[in-house]
């Protein structure tokens, strides 16, 4: 199965602007993307992020061992949005470099912990996580009934100019 993601350039810019804001004590910011989903042929899924949920300053935990640690309120708000709006939810954060980014060991451990929680509220949707660099992005997607996440194989950033990222 191939997972692709299509997102508007405007939304990507909004995400980058929010994640670039300094936080009073966390070293970096994180956010969530509410997403619609569609099936394509042959055996593919497209994820469409359409709304960005920023994590409020007070919803970070003061943990110097990581760049940013979300508190329970941050996750709860994202879960609530997924439930109320009937959508998939993708976590997002940035690695500050150029080129294709990838998740650190800590990122993988944490996303493995909290992403499957979204199935408690929206069990039929895929959920996942994105990591952005200065000029690219990568992602993982947890499909329902699959324990291991799938790498997102393609990104279409829709705007002028279009940007295609293919794994």
């Amino acid at each position, binding site marked *: 199965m191939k997972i692709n993601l299509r997102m*508007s350039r405007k939304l990507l810019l909004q995400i980058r602007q929010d994640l670039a804001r300094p936080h009073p004590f966390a070293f970096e910011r994180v956010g969530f993307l509410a997403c619609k*989903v569609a099936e394509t042929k042959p055996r593919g899924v497209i994820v469409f992020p359409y709304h960005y949920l920023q994590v409020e300053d007070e919803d970070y935990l003061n943990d110097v061992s990581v760049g940013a640690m979300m508190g329970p309120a941050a996750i709860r708000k994202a879960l609530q949005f997924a439930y109320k709006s009937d959508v998939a939810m993708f976590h997002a954060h940035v690695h500050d470099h150029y080129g294709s980014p990838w998740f650190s060991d800590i990122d993988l451990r944490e996303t493995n912990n909290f992403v499957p929680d979204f199935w408690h509220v929206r069990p039929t949707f895929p959920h996942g996580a994105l990591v952005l660099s200065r000029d690219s992005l990568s992602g993982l997607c947890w499909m329902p009934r699959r324990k291991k996440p799938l790498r997102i194989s393609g990104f279409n950033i829709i705007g002028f100019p*279009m940007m295609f990222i293919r794994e």
Partner: protein
Amino acid sequence: MTDWLLRQSFLGAKSDEVFSKCRVAVIGLGGGGSHIAQQLAHLGVGNFVLVDPDHVEETNLNRLVGATKKDAARATPKTTVSRRLIRRINPTAQVVRIPKEWQEEGRLVAGCDVVFGCVDTYIAREEIERVCRRFMIPFIDIGMDVTELPDGYLISGQMILSMPDDLCMRCLGFLTEELLAQEAARYGAAGGRPQVIWPNGILASAAVGTFVQLIAPWRRDLKPSVYLEYDGNTQAVMPSNRLQHLVGKQCKHFPFADLGDPFWR
């Protein structure tokens, strides 16, 4: 850069890779669509979904690029003609043929990066645009018309780029409820679907130019053409005057959150 694409290296050092990985649908492979398919093959586009339920007839030979007398005699599907044309230019191109109505394989179209619409009716355009919006696909539409006037004929046409999250064909004033309702009476006033090769070629070239502006722009400040109007009597292609009244406007016809499968389960 691939050797046979060297002369277009100004489109970007990796433009050959961008084109080769791009998946494009061409809906309608008549006079306009066959031109577009041919040009995209020359550009190095690597993945095609070709859609047309029709086969070649004798009366298509005045404009259908790649079609021969034999194709007319054998009633070759138009998708087969365009696939043959593409493969002769680029043998590595992947071509999926859909020799039926595009709606029957809508999921294949939804997986494409860009859709070209070369259809005859406003209703068909509206349906394609609707799907492209839902699946966040840029939609490039072309069409030409021949209208009978008291002193002769007027050849006209248009190329429209409908970008998700931007102005749609209704915003641009190209599609209206009245037009959709009156289509049968108003379209092709010069007789049964009049078509000739050169306006199709001009409009197809404008569409492919817009496609390249969109995915491999040759200047940083380049913005793709959104609405070009063609006056076949003066041989002029100009940006539509309607655009100047739409600066800063947002589309109200397609709410941005209406994406994906409405009832995902």
